[in-house]
């Protein structure tokens, strides 16, 4: 696979103190689905808009298929964007909207009609070709915006929070549809989102951004299972954090002191003993122990809160050391068949050593 987008030390400084994007280098392979993930203000949209040509970088360069396009205006770049508000032209029909990008390419009328039909059929909306965008639902407009962007067969498709305006059910459905569309058309997709589920479900690779920089990039499962920092651990999924101190290492297992208990963590690279660290583990990797059961890495405390969310239960446990952690369990049977934990009852939890994260420093977010 060849690199289609190469960003080199790309920065956008609005002023010496206001920095949108800070020294980002990133390579996107041809045909990849890459997601830029982060909270609002982390620079992900600015980065996308620089690739699209809507903002000029203050430093660095952008290469598209090997060609430097850093200073090319949007209308000279072979990339297309799906805008957050779709930006469909209200004075044109659906067909004219989709065909507009072909008109600017000076294609013949017949060619335009064929390609508009193909693109609209791909998103299943050819029957709406003569309607106005205002007459369509949010999900349909979203598809029209997609059709309009891919009809030019760009080298890269940019998607700026494409699903944020849709309701939850439709969003879930569109996630899968977009993923299928990506597989079908084979164009490189770069999407911006603040929704971690969206990023995990759709992307080949996720780039997590934090205040203008790349915090971590990798496959969804790598980010989820091996977060590089508490920030990433907390932004993708939920993580329980405990302040701790590192202890001795035996083989791959490192002892870590948490308030009220000592845990063992299986680490690739262990910190030297005596360091201040942050211990993390995910609520769904925690096991609730039966009364007589014994296990490695136990934590005991009292139930502070029970949250029912249909799929399962989340129990907040007040540990003996004073910290509060979540433990998730699925409900494979109806609730009536299970015994609900009572608030105030004592509870013991276990977390396997290979599910424990250790981060240097006490930076619980």
């Amino acid at each position, binding site marked *: 696979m060849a690199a289609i987008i190469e960003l080199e030390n790309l920065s956008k400084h609005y002023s010496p103190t206001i920095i949108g994007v800070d020294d980002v280098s990133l390579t996107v392979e041809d045909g990849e689905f890459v997601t830029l993930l982060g909270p609002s203000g982390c620079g992900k949209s600015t980065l996308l808009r620089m690739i699209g040509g809507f903002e000029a970088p203050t430093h660095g360069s952008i290469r598209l298929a090997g060609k430097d396009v850093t200073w090319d205006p949007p209308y000279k770049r072979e990339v297309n964007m799906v805008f957050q508000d779709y930006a469909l*032209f209200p004075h044109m029909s659906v067909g004219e909207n989709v065909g507009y990008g072909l008109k600017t390419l000076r294609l013949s009328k017949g060619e335009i009609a064929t390609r508009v039909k193909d693109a609209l059929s791909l998103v299943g909306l050819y029957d709406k070709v003569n309607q106005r965008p205002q007459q369509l639902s949010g999900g349909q407009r979203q598809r029209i915006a997609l059709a309009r962007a891919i009809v030019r067969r760009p080298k890269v498709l940019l998607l700026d929070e494409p699903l944020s305006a849709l309701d939850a059910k439709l969003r879930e459905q569109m996630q899968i549809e977009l993923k299928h569309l990506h597989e079908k058309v084979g164009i490189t997709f770069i999407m911006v989102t603040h929704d971690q589920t969206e990023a995990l479900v759709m992307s080949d690779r996720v780039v997590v951004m934090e205040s203008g920089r790349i915090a971590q990039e990798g496959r969804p499962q790598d980010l989820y299972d091996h977060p590089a920092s508490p920030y990433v651990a907390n932004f993708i999924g939920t993580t329980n954090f405990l302040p701790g101190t590192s202890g001795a290492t035996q083989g791959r297992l490192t002892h870590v002191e948490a308030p009220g208990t000592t845990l063992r963590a299986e680490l690739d690279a262990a910190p030297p003993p005596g360091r201040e660290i942050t211990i993390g583990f995910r609520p769904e990797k925690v096991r609730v122990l039966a009364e007589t059961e014994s296990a490695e890495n136990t934590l005991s405390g009292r139930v502070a809160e029970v949250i029912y969310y249909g799929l399962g239960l989340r129990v907040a446990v007040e540990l003996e050391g004073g910290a509060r952690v979540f433990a998730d369990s699925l409900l494979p049977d109806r609730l009536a068949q299970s015994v609900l934990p009572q608030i105030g009852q004592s509870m013991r939890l276990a977390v396997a050593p290979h599910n424990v994260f250790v981060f240097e420093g006490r930076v619980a977010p």
Partner: protein
Amino acid sequence: MTKNTPSLMARYGADTAFMTFVAALMAFLYIPIWVLIAFSFNDSRSLTWPLSGFTLDWYRKLAENTDLQAAIGNSFYVASLATLLTLCVGVPAAMVLHRFDFPGKSVFRRLILLPITLPGIVTGISMLNMFRLMGFQLSLETVVLGHATALLGVVVTQVYARLQRLPKSLQEAAYDLGATPWRSFVDVTLPNIRSAIVGAGLLSFVLSFDEIPVTFFLTGRDNTLPMYIYSTMRRGVTPEINAVGTIIVLLSLLLIVVAVIATRERRK
């Protein structure tokens, strides 16, 4: 049922009051115009009730009055040119205000708007002084310049307001789809601000057409229609003036129809 009756009564009462109010408002707005039209066909010179008989004499006199016709022609000339000029300056000015951020932008915007808030007399006197200083001969063209200046604010305000309501992403989408800035303006921006431009143009035309103070100071020997009517008023309102008024009402109606057609959403 009985429980509902009082509230039904109250609603009926409120509806009646509302309809009466609307009727009174309409009467207030339109009775003077009907009076004007009625007297333009009345065969008596005095404007007193009741109407004495039907005649087209006043329209015939109108057709013979070359001074009046010249004044009407001058008014059309001035209003058309002033509208054209103010649109040619105002639309780009609104676009600049909308597109670019520069130091002193809000001051610039206020300065453009100032001439509409200034009384016409001030605009008239100041422009008269300026033209004198520059050695311009007063003529209909100086009136055009005066009107265009005074009306610039109307055009800029309307077009600027519309541009602000237009999502920025529309133009970006046009760029994204391969349109150059000029092309995206013609294909995307212009169709979306067209009704604001037409509306501002019509308003400018009408305001210029019946403008007196600025015209009074800036015109040379030529008279515009409102100036002519004003000068003949010293001899009292003649039915001839009513006839002119009636024709203008008809033309205004025509203008409104044209405006509606021009700004109507194209539907399929």
